[in-house]
């Protein structure tokens, strides 16, 4: 048991904190234009942090990536870092055709292009039977038809990971890496509370080369499962980082802000609000780090730990944000103040990669209920 960071982890944490506090944060979240920021992120080598060296990455492993994503959450980092480094790259490394890997991984790892995932459909459900998009065999490969919702960075990405039905059994799903420039892709923008560029992508007989299938035909669902689990664990750690930051700015505010002649942080009701926030944040930090570690180590308890972390983070961190609003009073209710940016991200992350109902059910299963 070691709840501290090792040397690598501490190095990643320190450099991420230093860089992101300077370059990211509310201002970046508001600007909408993240290109310059993304170039710097690429220079830091972060997209490839956990990618093998042979594909141009730093091969530092998922735990170090978790440390990075925690800081990314604390500072509202922008751009498809999560999508590629957490979700797409481990899957491609594990199961993609070597030709595909060589073609796209190095450019994704150095940040010169980016990836998105297109799995969920209108049902927003992570169950195989709800994948309705189809991929049909053609002479040269596959043709994909269907509509995918909630695609973050779907217009910015150059590669899209798509789950499509290739057989009649519920689990007959395959995974494809589709070039965003391919034929038949249309997109529709939705306004997401977090401000993350989000699209609905429609594929109309979009042609995919045969080597762009990941793993075997009809065998893609376990990859989606693994991806969902990673997504949940890393969203949890991202929420932990965000919660810590919100706690920090709130503690600073109540020490400064005076009412009735004293700092409001000297009122016991405010102190207890802050104490509740502190306990929640610490709990989520530990649960989320444990979940990331379990996933990285392929622990037999990973399913349990991930659902626990995601449930705790999704419940407690939005609550931390609301309590922060209560402590900030009217000023925190304005658009001008930064607080709501964190709240918006917390609410958004809380429902991604399995909402409370989904993880409750998974956890109850894992606990043999």
């Amino acid at each position, binding site marked *: 048991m070691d709840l501290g960071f090792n040397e690598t982890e501490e190095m990643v944490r320190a450099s991420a904190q230093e860089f992101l506090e300077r370059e990211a944060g509310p201002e970046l979240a508001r600007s909408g234009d993240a290109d310059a920021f993304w170039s710097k992120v690429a220079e830091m080598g972060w997209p490839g942090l956990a990618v093998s060296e042979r594909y141009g990455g730093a091969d530092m492993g998922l735990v170090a990536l978790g440390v990075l994503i925690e800081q990314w959450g604390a500072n509202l980092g922008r751009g498809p870092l999560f999508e590629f480094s957490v979700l797409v790259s481990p899957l491609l490394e594990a199961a993609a055709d070597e030709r595909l890997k060589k073609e796209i991984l190095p450019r994704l790892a150095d940040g010169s292009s980016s990836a998105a995932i297109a799995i969920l459909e209108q049902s*927003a459900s992570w169950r195989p039977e709800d994948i309705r998009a189809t991929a049909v065999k053609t002479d040269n490969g596959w043709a994909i038809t269907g509509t995918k919702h909630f695609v973050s960075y779907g217009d910015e990405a150059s590669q899209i990971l798509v789950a499509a039905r290739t057989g009649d059994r519920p689990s007959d799903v395959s995974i494809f890496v589709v070039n965003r420039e391919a034929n038949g892709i249309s997109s529709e923008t939705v306004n997401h509370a977090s401000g993350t560029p989000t699209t609905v992508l429609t594929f109309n007989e979009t042609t995919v080369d045969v080597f762009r299938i990941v793993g075997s035909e009809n065998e893609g669902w376990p990859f989606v499962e693994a991806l969902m689990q990673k997504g949940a664990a890393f969203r949890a750690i991202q929420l932990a980082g965000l919660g810590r930051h919100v706690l920090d700015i709130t503690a600073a505010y109540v020490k400064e802000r005076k009412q009735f002649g004293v700092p409001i942080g000297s009122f016991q009701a*405010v102190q207890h609000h802050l104490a509740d926030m502190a306990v929640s944040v610490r709990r989520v930090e530990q649960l989320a780090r444990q979940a990331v570690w379990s996933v990285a180590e392929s622990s037999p308890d990973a399913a349990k730990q991930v659902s626990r972390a995601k449930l705790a983070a999704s419940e407690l961190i939005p609550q931390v944000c609301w309590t922060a609003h209560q402590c900030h009073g009217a000023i925190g209710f304005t658009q*001008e103040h930064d607080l*709501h940016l964190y709240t918006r991200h917390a609410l958004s992350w809380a429902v991604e990669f399995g909402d409370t109902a989904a993880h409750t059910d998974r956890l109850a299963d894992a606990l043999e209920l």
Partner: protein
Amino acid sequence: MRFEFTTEDEQFRSELRTFLAEQLPDGWTGPVDESSKDGWALNQRMRKALAARGWLVMHWPEQYGGQDASSLRNIIFAEEMAYHRAPGNDRFGTRMIGPVLMFYGTDEQKSKYLPDIAAGGIQWCQGYSEPDAGSDLASLKTRAVRDGDKFIINGAKIWTSLAHRADMMFMLVRTDPDAPKHRGISMLLVDMKTPGVEVRPIYNMAGSHSFNQVTFDDVAVPAENLVGDLNNGWRVGMSVLNYERSGIDYVAWGQRAWDELAQFCRDETGPNGLPLSADPSIRRKMAELDVEIEGARLLAYEVAWSQQQGEAPADVASMSKLSGTLANKSVLDYGLQLLGMYGVLESGSPHAKLQGRFFKMRMFYTSGEILAGTTEIQKNLIAWRGLELPRV
């Protein structure tokens, strides 16, 4: 003990519902965005229509054009208006400054302002909060200095709802800086077009413009615009806040959100192919929320009923405000949870469910626990006034 309204009250409720169905646009779901041109126009139209029916100031005495409507009749009005998310229930004029003028105003003030308010012809705003004051309202610093037959005002007010739409402001100013803080305050009425008044918008985190910061730079106000005695403004001003603290609006908003969510649960299918409303954990939570709303509603009714008895139990008003805001918040929180990934699509998005309203409302009603006395202040008041616990 009698837990039903009179036949006449129920008849009024049903007339009001019919009126609202006729007057509100087809398929109206609200809430109104008063910063938009259309929204403000609807507000104006509804206000006039209410005035025409005699309902706008039905709680006023007959001598001022009202109907002496009972507090209970009144709360039915507030409940239905809020439930239908109907604009036009002008609280600043008809609920706040109007009654204050009847009690504290001069004959000139009464005849000058009350008929206009009753006719829905004037918009008021409330100038109490200041940038550095927060819950400590009495620490306000905006100064008014007597200069001949005028007061000269300098300072700033904040969180002023509808200041950008208002014709007049009733405001608290410091007229004796040397007196103890509650004793040097007066209330003035200020025409918003007076030179030196500047209104700057504050957008809230739900994205709408309902607040403003209003600055006063040597603003000259006629001395006859003083309401009540000089330096007695704290008492005059606080008589307004009792109204603000009733929780019925929040209860009705919460009830409406609950109804929308219940319909959503009946209409949407869960993973097992059954309606969401068949899921025991959803049924359980929806039932809990219903209990929370009903409890808060009874407290709001109790406030009205007590007023009708000539009592004004300050602790019940605090309980009502606190319970109403919490019930409303609980419903919205659960709504976001049920809507899942759709809950964080903003209104106006294609594919947003329930028009993205739940997210917007959740962000907006965050203010419920902060404005007009935070939840913490309400609890203090319950402990001090209701339970007589010691203030140290």
